């Protein structure tokens, strides 16, 4: 019983960064921007969050700095991909490299360390204990006592579902992705919407970075995003960008991530347990493609 509670708890914790980045990616997905740069935006956000929190001694500044870091990376992406018309894949890959190189460089330049930077001066984001629910046995440890960003993320999933499918802005954004010229023809700049989508995704990926470096752990390590931005991209493909679908899928991935962690106490070598989320991604893509094949075969059968 204790193990089950522990695993559910770690699923929620591990799902959050993937979900946050995925929610950001929802905007670029519907704006039809191939956003492979989420990994880099997350990494930059994680770094600027630690830098802000350490230098100002405040988690509020750290959180804002993390978001600003993500937005600045997104701004570079938007300028190159939208306004200079550089290929999105190329720009995104270059941003990822810039993030990896830039944070490694800045780590040495600012804090004189290689590998990882930790310090008691880094203020972590606060954890929230929910009254009543927190006291319940079983549910309490799973639902309560997490860094506050976990709850913000859950709320964001609902808000973004509404924003994307129930508001005029969401409609325009999706239209800009489907047919940019149609949007341009009614006097709304599709380039502008695409740039905004990239910036929103940057802010949310930055927040995912904040969660990694000030919530999940309290330190910055080289390449600490460790593929979560790419897993988020896979999750977006799997759920076709639906925020509530992302919520479910991220929890599944969080579960596998957490499964890896809990298996570490067994005799399986830790390197294999660390592989679990990546293998799970490949398996999920396999199941998705099989399902898609079955559906399209079914439709062809009906038509014939």
């Amino acid at each position, binding site marked *: 019983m204790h193990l089950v509670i522990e695993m559910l708890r770690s699923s929620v914790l591990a799902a959050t960064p993937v979900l946050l980045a995925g929610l950001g990616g929802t905007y670029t997905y519907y704006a039809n921007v191939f956003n492979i740069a989420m990994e880099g935006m997350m990494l930059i956000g994680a770094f600027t969050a630690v830098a802000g929190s350490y230098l100002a001694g405040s988690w509020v500044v750290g959180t804002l700095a993390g978001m600003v870091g993500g937005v600045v990376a997104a701004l570079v992406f938007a300028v190159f991909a939208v306004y200079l018309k550089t290929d999105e894949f190329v720009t995104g890959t270059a941003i990822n*490299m810039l993030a990896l*190189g830039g944070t490694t460089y800045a780590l040495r330049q600012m804090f004189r360390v290689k590998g990882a930077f930790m310090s008691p001066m880094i203020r972590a984001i606060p954890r929230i204990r929910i009254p009543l629910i927190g006291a319940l046995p079983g549910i309490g440890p799973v639902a309560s006592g997490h860094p506050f960003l976990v709850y913000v993320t859950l709320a964001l999933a609902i808000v973004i579902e509404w924003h994307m499918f129930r508001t005029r802005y969401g409609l325009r954004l999706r239209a800009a992705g489907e047919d940019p010229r149609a949007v341009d023809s009614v006097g709304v700049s599709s380039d502008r919407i695409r740039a905004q989508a990239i910036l929103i995704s940057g802010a949310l990926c930055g927040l995912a970075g904040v969660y990694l470096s000030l919530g999940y752990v309290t330190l910055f390590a080289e390449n600490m995003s460790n*593929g979560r931005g790419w897993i988020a991209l*896979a999750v977006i493909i799997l759920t076709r960008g639906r925020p509530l679908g992302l919520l479910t899928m991220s929890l599944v991935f969080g579960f596998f991530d957490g499964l890896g962690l809990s298996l570490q106490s067994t005799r399986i070598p830790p390197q294999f347990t660390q592989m679990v989320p*990546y293998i799970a991604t490949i398996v999920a893509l396999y199941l998705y493609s099989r399902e898609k094949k079955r559906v399209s075969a079914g439709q062809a059968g009906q038509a014939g």
Partner: protein
Amino acid sequence: MSKNAITALAGIVVALLAGLAILWAQGYPALPSYAALFSYSLFSKFAIVSTLNKATPLILTGLSAAVGFGSNCVNLGQPGQFLIGAMAVAAFGIACDLPTPVMIPLAIMVALAAGALWAGIAAGLRRRFNMDEFITTLMLNFIADYFTLYLISGPMWDRTTYSPMTKMTNPGSWLPMWDGLSTAFVVSCVAFVITWVIWDRSKLGYEWRVMGQNSAFARVGGCRNEANFTRAMLLSGALAGLAGGLMIMGGMQHRFVKGMGANYAWDGVMIAIVAANGMVPTGLYALFFAAIQTGAMGMELETAVPSEFALVLQAIIVLFVVASRESTRLLINRWAAKLRARAAAGGAQDIGKGEGGERRASGH
């Protein structure tokens, strides 16, 4: 000079200036840093030899990415293919002890095959189940990373050492050094020539390039895209695997060490991107990036700029060169449109003296 070379040069100059500005803003002596960067990478025999040794893996990972991207196979699995290639050669070199003339060709084959195998997994998943290769190759990188880490800290760990690494390979598989230059560079050059011939001078390479430009056109033209996809993926993987294998066969350590190869694979991806998937530009940029990385060490010695600055500089170069290429193309198209509009307006003078045409063109 061709148009491409000029725009590339413009991009490089702007990027180097941006790098200079970053150094200056952080209070480093900017110009002396650059002087150190280039004197330690180009202006002595030792510097050049170091640069060429550094270029050895970069040429191969660059070619790997260029063959992939140029054929429209989004192989982002170079890091994994590199590690698997290196691990296979390490295992082979530890297990077999044969004379050098037999051992070296075999080790090269092992590296090629191992890299191709790892890329082949992604190719197979794409062909059988239509799974996007860019995600599967990325995920396979992490799997390769943890798998090799498991091997070097578990079953293949050399217990006489304190950090995870394999035993040394048998000397038969070592590539000789030649006055400081590892002959791995020669192997790399041979691979470059072979790849260039396949890519630029063979029917197969032509079909891949067509597939990269326009896969529908290739299909209509009678190319078997599915088979070509697999073949390009396999070659791409083989080249990355060879890069990894040469790290074991050449150099000094002759064993698989934790964290080996650092960024060579991702550097290759950037090199291919900045070279627009051309084979000769890939070779040239590989040398250029090798010079930056080699020089960065000297820069750290002379002006205390962390050598990681090379990573920043490389990414900036990629962004600026690609952007200058794309925006010049865009500008030229715009000028051409303007000229056409003017010509059309001039041809129909009675209709409003060309004002309409002019306004429309400049309104863009």
